[in-house]
């Protein structure tokens, strides 16, 4: 629980746009992904990575998580991206085209080498693999177990639908299996799952619907392309007042149950047992991160004392 970090909203910021980079500290998203890959034209790759390096060096008062999306390691830019930006200490690297465990492991071993060279703690740089192809979806369960640096899995719907040669629809029916498989992989190793971007910046209702869908499935956050999308995403991920109230009642009930020497109790005619308590604790933990409740529920309330 100690390492719980809100990642509801990860905003893409093009690495070749100084005006956007300079506003990073103003955006109210939980994190940014500075992009050296798709957002940067081929003839600006070198200039962009120098720009990003300088920006990171000057962004000393960090107020959000900062990731850099490098070019694929298989490309001629990927390694140079790492060389340039890692000394400026981003929190982690978003790895595009993370199609196999081997390529993620390759990044892991490269990060180890840079940490040794820079005199940093081994494991300082995190990895956010992009699962964005049929191969990635098939291999995601092995990918998730590749490295302890991986703090979340990111599903990339745009590249995924391209690799499948299908249309990306707003309803997202075509994504259901892939989204679920990424979630299983993440939950199986106890890390977060982050959903794809919603490309239509003008369609806030569509964004809300998609965010509600992925929250229901189990995703804990979403990537986004425009700062205007932040509020909708945060609203959806914030626990509702009724959810918080019910969660508090559940915790209260289980505390009473424990005093009576049992781990099960009825609340409003519904059984409250360990899974219900765990779910309530998760709601309250998220609510706490949103500043909606003061206390964090400790493990003993969830599992009882030995």
């Amino acid at each position, binding site marked *: 629980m100690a390492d719980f970090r809100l990642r509801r909203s990860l905003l893409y910021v093009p690495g070749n746009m100084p005006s956007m980079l300079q506003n990073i500290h103003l955006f109210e998203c939980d994190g940014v992904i500075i992009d050296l890959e798709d957002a940067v034209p081929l003839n600006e790759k070198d200039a962009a990575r120098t720009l990003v390096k300088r920006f990171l060096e000057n962004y000393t008062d960090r107020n959000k998580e900062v990731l850099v999306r490098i070019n694929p390691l298989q490309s001629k830019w990927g390694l140079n991206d790492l060389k340039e930006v890692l000394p400026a200490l981003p929190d982690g690297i978003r790895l595009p085209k993370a199609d196999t465990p*081997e390529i993620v492991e390759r990044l892991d*071993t490269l990060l180890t080498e840079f940490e040794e060279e820079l005199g940093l703690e081994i*494991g300082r740089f995190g990895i956010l693999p992009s699962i964005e192809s049929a191969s990635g979806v098939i291999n995601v369960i092995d990918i998730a177990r590749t490295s302890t640096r991986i703090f979340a899995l990111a599903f990339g719907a745009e590249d995924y639908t391209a690799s499948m040669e299908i249309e990306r629809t707003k309803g997202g029916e075509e994504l259901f299996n892939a989204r679920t498989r990424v979630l299983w992989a993440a939950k199986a190793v106890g890390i977060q799952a982050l959903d794809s971007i919603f490309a239509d910046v003008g369609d806030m209702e569509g964004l809300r619907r998609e965010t509600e869908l992925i929250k229901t499935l189990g995703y804990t956050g979403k990537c986004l392309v425009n700062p205007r999308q932040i509020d909708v995403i945060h609203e959806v991920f914030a626990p509702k007042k009724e959810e918080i109230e019910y969660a508090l009642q559940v915790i209260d009930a289980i505390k009473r149950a424990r005093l009576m020497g049992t781990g099960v109790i009825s609340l409003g005619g519904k059984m409250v047992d360990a899974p219900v308590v765990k779910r309530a604790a998760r709601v309250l933990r998220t609510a706490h991160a949103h500043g909606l409740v003061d206390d964090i529920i400790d493990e003993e309330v969830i599992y009882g004392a030995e």
Partner: protein
Amino acid sequence: MDGLWYKECRQGRRFIIKITPGESLTDKILQFAYKENVHNAVILSAVGSVKHVRLRGIKNGAKLPITPARITIHELEGPLELLSLVGNIFPGEDVLLDCHLHIMVGKSSGEVVGGHLFDAKVYATCEIILTELEVEGVERHVSASGISTYYINGE
């Protein structure tokens, strides 16, 4: 010869070894070697079954030296069929014997996993055939690559 060192050795005694359930493979092999005064040896064959296997693999793309961050450690509770155990025994630092073992084990599904063995416990039985090697001037030391490897006198 460039990139290669060698030394002729002769076969010494041969031993048929059986390790009983629950015992550590590496501890027992070394204890046997001390007891019989075997300084250099090669494991010719090993069959049986094992549990609590701890082995490692090297991560994709890892550069030398092999450090903890460059390996993945696997712990398999088992029991598993012992399909192969290969390796050798040579004197290490301070003349203490040291063994270098690689293992392959089979799951109930028939899938095989393997790697550099740290240790394993014998499950039902472990039958090992081992040959002593008569040679002098071969010692195991940690190399620049981060692993313990043998050095041949004159190298």
